[in-house]
């Protein structure tokens, strides 16, 4: 298997046949994969004043009310179109935590124009898909459809975010569904560990809370909370209408003007301030010796999306890499940590991550180990981190840079990943970064910079740790902190 290429697969992983495929799309963004943002193209020569690309342009237009329309036309017979909204659980407080997610659930429950049944029938009969997800900083509604149905898809999206009925009966029914979803999330241990990690790293702040919200909130959120959230956050300047696949920008623009032009006004008064979220080095341990494996995440505070150091941290993240014991592969993988983990049978799998928010981020590693190897694995991980700060080599960095570019470029395959990339970049950077620029930024990284940047964010820093399962042998927090420094052994 593609060992070094663990974070994505060349061929779809699940060997499911097309005809027999149950289309189950996750609603909630997990926030756990290593983050890549991207482009879809090739290396450029830095010297050349121009570079010819074999990809279409991303066209961006801003409406009078601040709504941005961005699209890339690749002439396919299908397309993805969606609304990327700059609002997520980070804008909630202790009392209404869960509202953004609740709202996402209510979106498909009927509008003034169409009942829930009408909406479902219409989507299903046109062979389209409608989906939504909420993360800590974004809410996304998107549709996939035949290109010929683009006007209808935009009309439906406009309808569900502007004219949702938010009926009392539907709200009551949805509480049960969300509680059930909560149970489902709790069976996904990776999600549980990441929620714990946020809870400890960003304790007592908005980023520390979960996206779903606590049970008592799910039981108490009412129509007014939902309406308030919409009127505060769903405003023109905070929304991007993004599309990819077979979409004509001018047509999309006309549709946007028609459906959103008059309605989504700009903010009257202040844009709600982004609540500050302070990072605290700390830990959460949930010991359960009955569980077969220990699940751990350890992270330091990294930077926000747009920070110049992001690229360097992403290279460092790629250097640590991902590994799963069923890859086999043995001693010769590009990640040194994978070699160590494999050689010493230290864990079942590990995955490095770099999760970014506007002004902060978490850079770290998630691992699944057997009870006996927890301490050894963590020790090796920390040693690797320190090596990043002190003597990572030029050739390793060169390799990681190459891999990072490959990861970003190959990921953009199909209209939905491209549309997601457009929507996300528009919200994060207010532009789509051209590939040559992205490549130039990666090319500029060298070993010295990796050492410098890693030293700045990792060396001697107090980490946030979340651990779940048979973790008796996990060293105590002070010892782990001690190992964030150079130790000769």
């Amino acid at each position, binding site marked *: 298997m*593609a060992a*070094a290429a663990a974070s994505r697969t*060349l*061929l*779809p992983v699940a*060997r499911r*046949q*097309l*005809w027999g495929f*149950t*289309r*189950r*799309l*996750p*609603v909630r963004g*997990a926030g756990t994969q290593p*983050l890549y943002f991207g482009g*879809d193209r090739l*290396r450029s020569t*830095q010297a*050349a004043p*121009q*570079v010819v690309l074999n990809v*279409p342009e991303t066209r961006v237009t801003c409406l009078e009310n601040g709504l941005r329309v961005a699209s890339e036309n690749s002439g396919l*017979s*299908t397309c993805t179109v969606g609304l990327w909204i700059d609002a997520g659980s980070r804008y909630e407080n202790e009392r209404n935590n869960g509202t953004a997610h609740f709202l996402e659930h209510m979106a498909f429950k009927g509008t003034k124009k169409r009942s829930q049944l009408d909406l*479902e*029938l219409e*989507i*299903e*009969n046109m*062979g*389209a898909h409608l989906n939504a997800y909420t*993360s800590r*900083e*974004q809410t996304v509604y998107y549709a996939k*459809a035949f290109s010929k149905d683009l006007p209808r898809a935009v009309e439906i999206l406009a309808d569900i975010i502007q004219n949702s009925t938010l009926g009392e009966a539907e709200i009551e029914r949805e509480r049960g569904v969300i509680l059930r979803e909560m149970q489902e999330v709790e*069976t996904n*241990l990776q999600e549980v560990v990441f929620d714990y990690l946020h809870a400890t790293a960003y304790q007592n702040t908005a980023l520390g809370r979960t996206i779903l919200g606590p049970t008592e909130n799910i039981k108490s959120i009412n129509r007014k909370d939902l309406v308030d959230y919409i009127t505060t956050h769903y405003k023109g300047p*905070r929304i991007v209408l993004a599309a990819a696949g077979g979409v004509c920008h001018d047509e999309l623009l006309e549709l946007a003007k028609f459906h959103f032009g008059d309605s989504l006004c700009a903010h009257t008064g202040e844009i709600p301030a982004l609540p500050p979220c302070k990072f605290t080095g700390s830990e959460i341990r949930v010991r359960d010796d009955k569980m077969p494996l220990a699940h751990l995440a350890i992270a330091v505070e990294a930077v*926000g*999306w747009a*920070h*110049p150091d992001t690229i360097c941290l992403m290279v460092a993240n790629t250097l640590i890499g991902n590994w799963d*014991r*069923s890859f*086999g*592969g043995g001693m010769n993988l*590009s990640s040194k940590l994978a070699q160590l983990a494999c050689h010493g049978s230290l864990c079942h799998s590990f995955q490095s991550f770099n999760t*970014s928010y506007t002004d902060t981020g978490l850079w770290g590693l998630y691992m699944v180990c057997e009870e006996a190897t927890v301490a050894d694995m963590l020790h090796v991980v920390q040693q690797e981190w320190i090596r990043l700060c002190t003597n990572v080599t030029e050739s390793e960095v060169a390799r990681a840079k*190459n891999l990072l570019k*490959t990861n970003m470029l190959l990921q953009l395959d199909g209209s*939905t990943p491209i549309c997601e*990339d457009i929507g*996300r970049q528009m*919200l994060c950077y207010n532009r789509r970064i051209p590939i040559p620029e992205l490549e130039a*930024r990666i090319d500029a990284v*060298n070993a010295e910079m990796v050492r*410098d*940047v890693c030293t700045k964010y990792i060396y001697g820093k107090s980490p946030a740790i979340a651990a779940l399962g048979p973790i008796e042998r996990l060293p105590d927090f002070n010892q782990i902190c001690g190992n964030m420094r150079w130790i000769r052994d």
Partner: protein
Amino acid sequence: MATAVWAAARLLRGSAARCARPRFGPPAHRRFSSGATYPNIPLSSPLPGVPKPVFATVDGQEKFETKVSTLDNGLRVASQNKFGQFCTVGILINSGSRYEAKYLSGIAHFLEKLAFSSTARFESKDEILLTLEKHGGICDCQTSRDTTMYAVSADSKGLDTVVGLLADVVLHPCLTDEEIEMTRMAVQFELEDLNMRPDPEPLLTEMIHEAAFRENTVGLHRFCPAENIAKIDREVLHSYLKNYYTPDRMVLAGVGVEHEHLVECARKYLLGAQPAWGATGSVDVDRSVAQYTGGIIKVERDMSNVSLGPTPIPELTHIMVGLESCSFLEDDFIPFAVLNMMMGGGGSFSAGGPGKGMFSRLYLNVLNRHHWMYNATSYHHSYEDTGLLCIHASADPRQVREMVEIITKEFILMGRTVDLVELERAKTQLMSMLMMNLESRPVIFEDVGRQVLATHSRKLPHELCTLIRNVKPEDIKRVASKMLHGKPAVAALGDLTDLPTYEHIQTALASRDGRLPRTYRLFR
């Protein structure tokens, strides 16, 4: 025929989910890194001095044309144009667990894990990866019951290197003792993971194939049985490779490449190459046709604590009931695919909005009416000489009997009247699923490769759509009635105390209404 179906669908995860909010105006950043040469410019502002990109434009629809050539040694070369800078190229081979009757079961599984290890020209897997990285490439090998695929996605400019590498990987692997030892471990781990996974679908699929095609072809184990792990060595692998890795059983397929260039590379690297295992020529190839037998495979297992974490998952019993459908080479394949779409289904709790098949029969008739059921999903597996349409269902062990009866009734209803609206919906959804999956380059690659491997040509997406559009209610009724004449295949996993007997399930499927025969028991 329509192997497009093979193209596996890809779940698009909301990986974008953790994002920042945009700040208009100058972004608030903190200290910058000390690296003096590194641009201290936030990502929200353009980097000065970067060349100005000149973008491509789409001139109308992509030209759909698949070109196929055959080399003198019988190897087929197929290619398809595609917009974009990357290509996916690979070698597909008619090889997989269905050909293992005379060999140790598990060889194909081993070969999958051993793929892209050291070869005559590349000293180690790492060297292969390094070579690919220079062209921004990644590699992967996947094996199914009847096909093994070695594939690379890379910058189109590296085509020559990529084909050379693929030829080496397929024909000249070293298969060192050390690599085989590592593979034994990886296979062992995969078997463990398979049994630990909360989703029983792969295991049930394995079981139902075993039940439907007892001890032959596609009914053979896809995963290496634990007892064979130690027995498979280089000699065993070579004796298998000699018979099955021959040019006439291979297709070199490429998406996003020039056909002439691909053929040229194929001639250079794949014509007249002497493989590592010596002389070529299929001496002893298993050409047996799949024999559908029907039958039942039961695995009694305590599922009361399958949860890996602190939150318990309710105890479930899983059943899968299937009947023989048809091969993907037959005309009836398309109506079966539409029927499968019409049955649809999924989990009783599944995320995702409208578009997941909410009006398919397994939702409307089963999950929406019987809230105690956890899952009801239809699957269609199709091969070159046979096929299997099956329904997976799960519920509390105490309701197994009821659950089986609900499923058998659904099978009987397949042969009854088909509503025009539901048929049209299923057809549209099938077409959209096909077209949406074919947005992705690796999926197109798999589709081109599999179709050419099976039929020497490729049915294009729009031709398939025409065939789908032409399906009439009578077609569905006809294929379903024909299917219902066969014996069922049943797989059952979990607490099976209340599982009806195989004979009863068979009787139910042969009856008018799908009811299980009444059993009278004095003492319960």
